[in-house]
């Protein structure tokens, strides 16, 4: 049913209602139903715009006061009423990228194993728990990170500093335990199951005959994966990685608990530093005046902007792949 026919039946108005009574009644039901569901669909779009509008409105005072200097300054001082967010933006991005560095090889490796190598009996035992891990609430990761992982990382950091302290990345306050390294590792653990699950789905779309053809020509299994399956799926895999990046940047609770809460620029792997999300989480209820609150919402707006750009990229890549995939099979 197109919009046009509905509008035209509407415009004929009540005069014809008496004449074609029966069809009127059914049409009325359909029309009403169409309008109702259309309203819900419009609400979804409205919600998206409301989100953006609300964030801008909340951040307006800070935007007016600091403008774009907010993004490049390094001071976060509630006492002097001076706010800017560069150190936390850098902290967020550094943590997210280190997490990707750790997570991507492991996830793609796992995904390839699950898609192509795994013996059939082992598949449910390995594959299903990974999906389960993707559903674990981030607060549970945070709790585990704080009480189990941070002590281990602290020991590693102290050892690294004692033996390799001359290297600038290891020349930081090792004894805290919480910091860039802890934050990155917990993020990596959290995004591994997501990247693995999406990559596996994408790898399973690689047409089997292509791999089998490669095998029939005498290639080893690894060669057929490396030269056929991975190139075929690379766009989608890149999308999966970007999806993981988006998650890592927006992640809040776990990073709040193990990432350290400092506003200073980082100089080493061991420095504690806020992420944008953790900064909002830990300061918001303590913000005592409106410019403070507004600045935190401004941070939220920046975070939102970054994740939206990343999410759009991921959508585009996965969409492009699924298009190609449909074309292959039709």
């Amino acid at each position, binding site marked *: *049913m197109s919009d046009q026919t509905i509008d035209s039946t509407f415009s004929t108005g009540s005069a014809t209602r008496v004449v074609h009574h029966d069809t009127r009644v059914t049409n009325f039901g359909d029309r009403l*139903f*169409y309008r*109702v*569901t*259309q309203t*819900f*669909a419009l*609400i*979804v*779009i409205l*919600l998206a715009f*409301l*989100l953006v509008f*609300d*964030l801008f*409105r*909340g951040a307006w005072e800070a935007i007016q006061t600091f403008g774009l200097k907010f993004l490049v300054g390094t001071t976060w001082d509630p006492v002097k009423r001076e706010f800017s967010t560069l150190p936390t933006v850098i902290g967020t991005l550094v943590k997210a990228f280190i997490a990707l560095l750790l997570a991507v090889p492991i*996830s793609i*490796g*796992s995904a*390839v*194993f699950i898609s192509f190598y*795994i013996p059939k009996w082992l598949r449910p035992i*390995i594959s299903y*728990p*990974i*999906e*389960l891990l993707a*559903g674990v*609430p981030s*607060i*549970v990761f945070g*709790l*585990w990170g*704080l*009480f*189990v992982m941070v002590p281990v990382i602290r020991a590693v950091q102290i050892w690294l500093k004692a033996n390799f302290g001359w290297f600038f990345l290891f020349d930081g306050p090792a004894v805290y335990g919480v910091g860039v390294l802890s934050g990155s590792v917990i993020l990596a653990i959290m995004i591994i*199951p997501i990247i*693995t699950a999406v990559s596996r789905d994408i790898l399973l779309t690689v047409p089997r005959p292509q791999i089998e053809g490669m095998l029939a020509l005498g290639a*080893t*299994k*690894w*060669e057929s994966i490396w030269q056929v399956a991975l190139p075929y799926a690379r766009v989608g895999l890149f999308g999966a990685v970007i*999806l993981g990046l988006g998650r890592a940047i927006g*992640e*809040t*609770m776990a990073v709040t*608990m193990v990432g350290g809460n400092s506003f200073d620029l980082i100089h080493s792997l061991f420095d504690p530093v806020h992420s944008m*999300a953790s900064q909002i*989480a830990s300061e*918001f*209820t303590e913000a005592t005046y409106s410019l403070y609150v507004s600045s935190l919402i401004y941070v*939220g707006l920046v*975070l939102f902007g970054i*994740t*939206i750009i990343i*999410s759009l990229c*991921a*959508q585009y890549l996965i969409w492009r792949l699924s298009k190609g995939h449909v074309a292959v099979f039709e």
Partner: protein
Amino acid sequence: MVTQHSTAERRHYQFRRATERLAGAGMVLCTAVTVFFLFMILGYVIYNGASAIDWNFLTGLPLPPGESGGGIANALVGSVLVVACAVLFAMPIGLGAAIFVNEFPSARLGRTVRFMAEVLTGVPSIVVGLFAYALVVRPMGSFSGLSGSIAYAFIMVPIILITSHEAFRLVPPSLREASLALGVPKWRTILGVVLPVSRTALLTGAVLAFSRALGEAAPMLFTAFGNPFWNLNLGKPIATVPMLIYTYATGPYDDWHQKAWAASFVLMMVVLVTSVMTRAFLRGKSHE
């Protein structure tokens, strides 16, 4: 088949075999690391959590800080209340929009809505909290369970929309056509044929959204906020389980830490059960 190979050929062959072995071993290692962390986390939560759970933990109220004993009943009930209320908001919107997107193919609106939903799933939960704060808490002047529900609903809508849309897509067109051919109006075809046929998948989506929201702490920080007392009034601050884990885990008392593990155990169990249920539903569906 056996032929004479030159040394170079043989060496090349051995190299390829070694690569194959190495790659296989690497992938096994990767998978082992993934699974290792999984079982580490599950194991710790079960080990530390299960031992701290007793009847009093599930039915008691929190005691003043520093005193051991007491429970998290208020947070359990609060979480269920806030999330259930969010489902009430999100279900009609998500389901209605999904019906529109799938059953009334329109040139642009349908695709735009679906696209928006996919983008909205990527919005960080802390930003959703800010949104609910600016939308509800600031005008109302206080933290409230209701604002928490709205934040959760915002997280749920795209999940419900996408899963429902996928469910409707799987309904064979012949069923719709059969119904329409019998003279049944389109809206009754949708309500009487399409919805019942896809009900398990719809339910699965709703359960998925429910369990996803149940574990989210970030949007509750400045909406539902938390409350050490018994409260069923959605107009007031209300305790939720993930918020309670955050407060207890970052607090200074050992007893609190134990309770945080126990509460995590409860959350994990809910996630586990819903996930197993979802799988069972989907499997049952594919066998039909």
